């Protein structure tokens, strides 16, 4: 799996795929997409990198320990953002009732905590897919 064409195409494609995934995650409350789809796109870029450059190079980019940490951290971020609603006097995942900044509808920084929740889901989905691929393709 040491092909020049594969590596060159992968090196060209991966930044654009990751940029599109980040766009899907951060604009999830305005346009189609969201945490799950964006996380899956980013994970596909990491898996593509691991396929064309080999497992060792890929695990230098995103180490298995960091991947595990991201997986726990994404879920924890979601739960903590939900608990903020209770702390500020609403229900779990309360958004406007808890007094978060709503912004102007249609702009990027609007909708309160929805962007934070999308970010948590995106991190968790990315690291879950990468961990799945790592544990499936590990030798021995």
């Amino acid at each position: 799996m040491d092909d020049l064409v594969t590596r060159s195409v992968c090196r060209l494609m991966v930044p654009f795929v990751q940029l599109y995934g980040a766009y899907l995650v951060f604009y999830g409350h305005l346009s189609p997409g969201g945490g799950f789809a964006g996380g899956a796109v980013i994970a596909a870029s990491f898996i593509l990198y691991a396929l064309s450059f080999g497992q060792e190079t890929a695990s230098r980019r995103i180490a298995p320990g960091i991947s595990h940490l991201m997986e726990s951290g994404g879920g924890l971020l979601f739960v903590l953002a939900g608990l903020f609603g209770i702390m500020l006097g609403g229900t779990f995942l309360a958004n406007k009732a808890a007094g978060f900044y709503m912004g102007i509808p249609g702009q990027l920084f609007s909708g309160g905590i929805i962007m934070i929740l999308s970010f948590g889901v995106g991190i968790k989905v990315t690291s879950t897919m990468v961990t799945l691929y790592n544990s499936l393709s590990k030798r021995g």
Partner: protein
Amino acid sequence: MITILDFLLLMFLIVCAIAVARIRDLLSAVVIFAAYSLVMAIIWQMLGSPDVAITEAALGTGVTTFLFIAAISRTQRAE
């Protein structure tokens, strides 16, 4: 109202589904399944649900194919 493009895509979908179930070579089955997912994503988009289309294109065509190929490389290729 079914247009000609709808009809062609749905026919391709049915042929792909039958071929995945009938074929003996597992790697070919995975590639045909990826083509099935891509056409399914186009149909989702035409039905007016771009959210599902993005997820189908990313998961069905991308990640699932990688995972299947990784699983085949650990086991036997022939059924």
